[in-house]
């Protein structure tokens, strides 16, 4: 046995409360991430990847809640921790970067102050020391003239600069895990590569594991060692990034791979649509019986419409949830 994983998610179910009761927005979600590892979660919007991330950092709010399953971080079950213990982890050992850097930063607070808060909250620094550390943190994310930039407000910075600030905030306390939810989706294609590179390097220096969440399989495979594909609230395949490109086992994964215009060309991976797969992701309340992908699947047979496939190990390593996997 190797050392215990950094984070271990087991059979997680996330409930969505609505007028008629509760529906599972995600279920049976299991994965593990080791220390310093890079792990990707890929899927179309509405597949449950973002709420899974919010569950890990304890930010699910009504109408969403954890319905079943466990999340173990560094050997401790998160649900058993008190609110104060959870807060001590949040930001300090598990940090998160959000998609939209304009709205994710407080518009009426200088960015330096928003970074400095981390040192006050988790490192017991006073404000003047924290502000000095904020300048260093900005320098770390390669923001030019950081001692001047700390006084700027978010609207004075470009999208790329704002996302650097978000990274500075997230990595301020050198966390064990960084959750990056579509960190570059809102940015120009040219800036995307810089931000990804920066995030990867800084995490490698600190030994920070990355959980990267995106609709963009190419981007995720480029950053992460292992990738899990989610569809309609379930993980349908989990593989090493290289394997998933070479030989995706699930029909949905293969559809995703086929829809990428040119492999390895990061610049072209801007906002790809899944043109190779007909139809759209069903709404949570309308998840079909059996395999949830069956209405869109070319290989679907009777069993797919009645019985949900179990997640099964592949001979070549990895896991898949399909009756007809390759």
């Amino acid at each position: 046995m190797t050392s215990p994983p950094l984070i271990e998610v087991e059979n997680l179910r996330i409930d969505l409360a609505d007028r008629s009761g509760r529906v599972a927005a995600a279920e049976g979600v299991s994965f593990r991430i080791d220390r310093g590892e890079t792990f990707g979660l890929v899927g179309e919007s509405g597949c449950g990847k973002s709420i899974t991330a919010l569950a890990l950092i304890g930010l699910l709010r009504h109408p969403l809640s954890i319905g079943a399953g466990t999340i173990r971080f560094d050997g401790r079950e998160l649900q058993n921790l008190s609110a104060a213990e959870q807060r001590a982890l949040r930001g300090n050992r598990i940090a998160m970067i959000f998609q939209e850097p304009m709205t994710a930063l407080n518009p009426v607070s200088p960015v330096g102050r928003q970074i400095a808060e981390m040192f006050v909250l988790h490192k017991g620094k006073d404000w003047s020391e924290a502000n000095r550390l904020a300048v260093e943190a900005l320098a770390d994310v390669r923001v030019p003239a950081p001692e001047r930039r700390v006084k700027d407000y978010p609207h004075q910075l470009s999208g790329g600069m704002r996302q650097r600030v978000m990274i500075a905030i997230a990595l301020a306390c050198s966390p064990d895990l960084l959750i990056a939810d579509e960190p570059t989706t809102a940015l120009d294609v040219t800036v995307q590569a810089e931000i990804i590179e920066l995030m990867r390097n800084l995490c490698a220096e600190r030994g920070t594991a990355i959980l990267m969440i995106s609709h963009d399989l190419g981007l995720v495979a480029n950053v992460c060692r292992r990738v899990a594909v989610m569809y309609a609230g379930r993980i349908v395949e989990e593989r090493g990034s290289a394997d998933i490109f070479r030989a995706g086992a699930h029909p949905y994964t293969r559809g995703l791979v086929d829809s990428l215009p040119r492999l390895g060309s990061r610049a072209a991976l801007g906002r790809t649509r899944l043109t190779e797969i007909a139809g759209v992701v069903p709404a949570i309340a309308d998840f079909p019986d059996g395999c949830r992908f069956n209405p869109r699947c070319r290989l679907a047979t009777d069993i797919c419409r009645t019985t949900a496939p179990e997640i099964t190990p592949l001979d070549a390593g990895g896991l898949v949830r399909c009756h007809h996997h390759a």
Partner: protein
Amino acid sequence: MLAFLIRRLLQAVPTVLAVVLVVFVLFSVVPGSIMSSMDGDGRGATDAQVMERMRKQLGLDDPIYVRFGAYISKLAMGDLGTSFRTREPVTSMLAKRMWPTLQLIFAAMTFAILIGVPLGFIAALRPGSLADTLSMVVAVSGLSMAKFWLGLLLMYLFALKLGWLPSFGYGDGGLKYLLLPAVTLGVSPMALLARTTRAAVLEIMTADFVRTARSKGMSETRVVKWHVMRNALVIILTAIGLQFGALMGQAVVVEKLFSWPGIGSLLVDSVLQRDIPTVQGSIFVVVLFFLAINMAIDLLYGVIDPRIRYS
């Protein structure tokens, strides 16, 4: 900043002119001549020759645009005319009444802010709780009460029954005299501020940056103190600016009820006695004050909200 101020001042000029025009025209169409109202109580000049001389003196026989021109040119030099009632310059009458009114309005607004804003915060941070329900009941009730009725009840309780406070008058202008009128006047802006604050905070609590703040491991108290408050303040400030207008209107009633010697009670007395120059002058001052307040609020935005720049 200075350029902004000058531009705002220039923008206000047409509004002020329009107000002056409206008020001027309004009182030029008073049924019955102004002279008859001057002599309404039988003490005025009844002699036909005297009347004739006064009409000439006051220029009442000139066409309305000539009279308006004359009024405006005198206004530009700070001359608002002479009161029909006291024969005193309107400007000096208004000057004497200015301070009590300012005192009353700012005291009322202070009360409204000190009670209304925290009430709104408490309600928004515990939506659906007893505190939320209670504070919203207080807010809706405050909006539904006739100001002078509340004033009468407060007067009865605190002045007549308990004897803690004087029932009316300005006295030495001290807090003792100010308290009842200010609370009476402050109740409805308090109620409105409570509602606005609640709505603003509820909305801000769903913003992305609040989620970011939570992801940093902040307690809810700190989220509110460090990130929600300043954002809410921008919205609350707008509401405060709008409330000043209504406050000036309500001040008329409250000043009259408590015999407070401000511009409001001067306005009512002048209206009742058809002392038209004083009525025009009072309305003019009220409008100027309201515009000035809104300009001050616009400047304050720049201090609170960095996204606003005066260039």
